[in-house]
């Protein structure tokens, strides 16, 4: 980004000033979301295609709302029931959709690098809405936004990311975003779910929760049943005993985050989710404003255009 890239494929596309600019604009859009008429005309007459090859609730609905609140026309395509289901290649699907001259293609794929490939096949701006276990940059942006709204700048803040790092695109994007914003990141989870070499991203790695009390923020990752079936962990019971975040493991003043959807009683206890220190609801709410800001940055932002908000 920063005027160089037309796409948002990875948090690596963003320098700290880019993140700050986008999130400042997200703040303005959050104000729009508080109005009775939650629309601005910034993308009127332009088309945003949401291409989702994986099921998604939060990400797809918030991208749709974000585009609509910017007055764009929105096309939602899900793999089930579409030509994708009939074996059409990603390239052919993208070329077909490009015939509609979309301003942006938002893509969610089970495969790393899918958004990058799409960017090479279309004139549209491409936004990575999650590619395999690789990245989910808009999640990272909305997480930084949510945290900044609550505690201000992240410089020197200690953030623990707890759980299944191996299978988490959120973890990867958030390590990059949090460290770019000056935070210190620790990864904690079962050793089988901490990928070899992940420390090279600039995070500390721990197999235990010892020292968690030093964290300002505890960011909990989703723990899926499949991981137990694949023998990464013996049982969800043992996982919960060792790694579940519950009020007994949190000290006062620590904030709790989770990208959703939560497995209640596994990675988080029900009372933790619903406690006042939980930012989970705020994260979902931030999703729309931050995605509006990303769409605006890629499609409408230019020195000659007044900020529509």
């Amino acid at each position: 980004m920063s005027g160089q890239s037309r796409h948002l494929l990875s948090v690596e596309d963003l320098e700290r000033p880019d993140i700050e600019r986008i999130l400042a604009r997200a703040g303005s859009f959050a104000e729009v979301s508080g109005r009775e008429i939650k629309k601005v005309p910034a993308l009127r007459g332009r088309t945003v295609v949401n291409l989702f090859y994986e099921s998604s609730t939060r990400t797809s609905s918030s991208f749709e709302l974000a585009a609509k609140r910017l007055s764009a026309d929105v096309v939602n395509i899900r793999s089930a029931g579409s030509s994708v289901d009939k074996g059409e290649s990603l390239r052919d699907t993208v070329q077909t959709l490009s015939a509609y001259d979309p301003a942006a293609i938002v893509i969610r794929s089970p495969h790393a690098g899918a958004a990058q490939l799409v960017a090479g096949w279309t004139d549209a701006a491409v936004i990575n809405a999650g590619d395999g276990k690789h990245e989910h940059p808009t999640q990272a942006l909305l997480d930084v936004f949510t945290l900044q709204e609550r505690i201000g700048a992240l410089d020197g803040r200690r953030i623990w990311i707890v759980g299944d790092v191996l299978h988490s695109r959120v973890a990867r994007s958030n390590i990059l975003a949090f460290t770019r914003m000056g935070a210190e990141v620790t990864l904690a989870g079962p050793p089988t779910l901490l990928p070899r070499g992940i420390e090279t991203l600039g995070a500390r790695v721990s197999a235990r929760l010892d020292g968690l009390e030093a964290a300002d923020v505890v960011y909990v990752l989703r723990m899926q049943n499949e991981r137990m079936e694949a023998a990464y962990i013996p049982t969800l019971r043992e996982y919960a005993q060792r790694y579940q975040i519950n009020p007994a493991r949190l000290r006062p003043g620590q904030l709790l985050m989770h990208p959703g959807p939560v497995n209640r009683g596994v990675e988080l206890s029900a009372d933790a989710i619903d406690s006042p220190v939980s930012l989970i609801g705020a994260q979902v709410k931030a999703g729309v404003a931050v995605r509006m800001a990303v769409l605006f940055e890629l499609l409408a932002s230019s020195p000659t255009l007044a900020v529509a908000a």
Partner: protein
Amino acid sequence: MTRPRDPLVCAPAPAADLLLRQAHVLDPRSDIDAPHDVLVREGQIAEIGAPGSLKAPAGVRVIEAAGRHLFPGFVDPHVHLRTPGQEYKESIATGTAAAAAGGFVQIIAMPNTAPTIDSSAVLEAVRALATQQAVVPVGVLASITIGLGGRELTEMAALSDLGALGFTDDGKPVTSAAMLRRALQYQRLCGGVIALHEEDPDLSGAGVMHEGAVSARLGLTGIPSISESTYVARDAAVAIYEGAAMHFQHLSAAESVVALAAAQDAAQASGARLSGEATPHHLTLTDATVRSLDSRFKMNPPLRTEADRQAVIEGLRSGVIACIATDHAPHARHEKEQPFEVAPMGTTGLETAFASVLTDLVRPGVLPLALVVERITAGGTLYGLEPPRIRVGAPANLTLVDLEATWDVGADGYVSRSANCCFHGRRLHGVVALTVAAGTVAFDTAKAPLTQEELA
């Protein structure tokens, strides 16, 4: 054991009559490293003389080769010709033409075709096609097990009688050590080297690249080095126990080189013969390239770390790894134009093998030119083939290369039917000017190259 049939087959072509004048001849086996004139008559090296001393008899084409190097022709023990069954990726015609363009004069084809080369009928059909289409001689390995299934041995003796050079389930490991042991026991009857693709499928799992910092960053499932090295150690122990001849294909991990070196030491008393090969891509590239998520860098075994690359280079230097092999693995554009995790594994390599090693290892002074020439001509000897030699009376197997000239890989397309080359876009030193294979001109930059249609 004697082979009833010539294991190498190619299409008939006119015998060459050439005088290569003032080429810098480098043949480590003949201990030549100086400018010479080389006269080829009726496909044989007829005379080697001081530079400028030989006269061309009538009807002999003269090639002024001053400033260029003349090597014994290269031999590639590991090529996927995709025939039968996947001719949309490569044919015997296009694959052998790509080999000739890369300076190779003999190649050995892998049996993981569709159907598998696991029966006399399929082997005969491939050899028959090669006698019509191959522009350089092709040797064929048959599979160890039916359909690469790992459960039933092929008729190894019959396949050997029909010219199979050896046996491999390449593309897949032989997971059962007991099955592998039986094949090694059967080797006493049928001869032929057992060549192995070493990989523990449980440890590799759904891996798509080397397990390490880069896979952790990209969220791609990793293939750990121990997936390869534990199988090398296991199978070498079985080979030593049986006193067998075993070849380890496309070694990629430092741990594997260590395991092979230790096994070679242990094998000396047993009569077992253990050899290894390394590919140009494992010698020159690392998993850092995968940061691009470009599926051209997806191959199996995967590109590994710089430490692994250095270990493979040292293995090649010391001789633990006896030869360079391309593992030329063509795939169609629509197959490679997919997300990294979905795209098939493999890179082409015939056209770039020598140039990539020259550019990245010889020119920077990592490996001597003579050693590289020895290793890139040694791929057939482990299968019992005579290595190409530049000496009077030998069949003309020659590769003429301009070491100073550069070319941009892929800029003019490829001779191979497929374009999935991991060196695509690189500027490499080393342009092959002429390849003489089995006494015939197989590639010649002085002539217009054949189009894909003509090769089809």
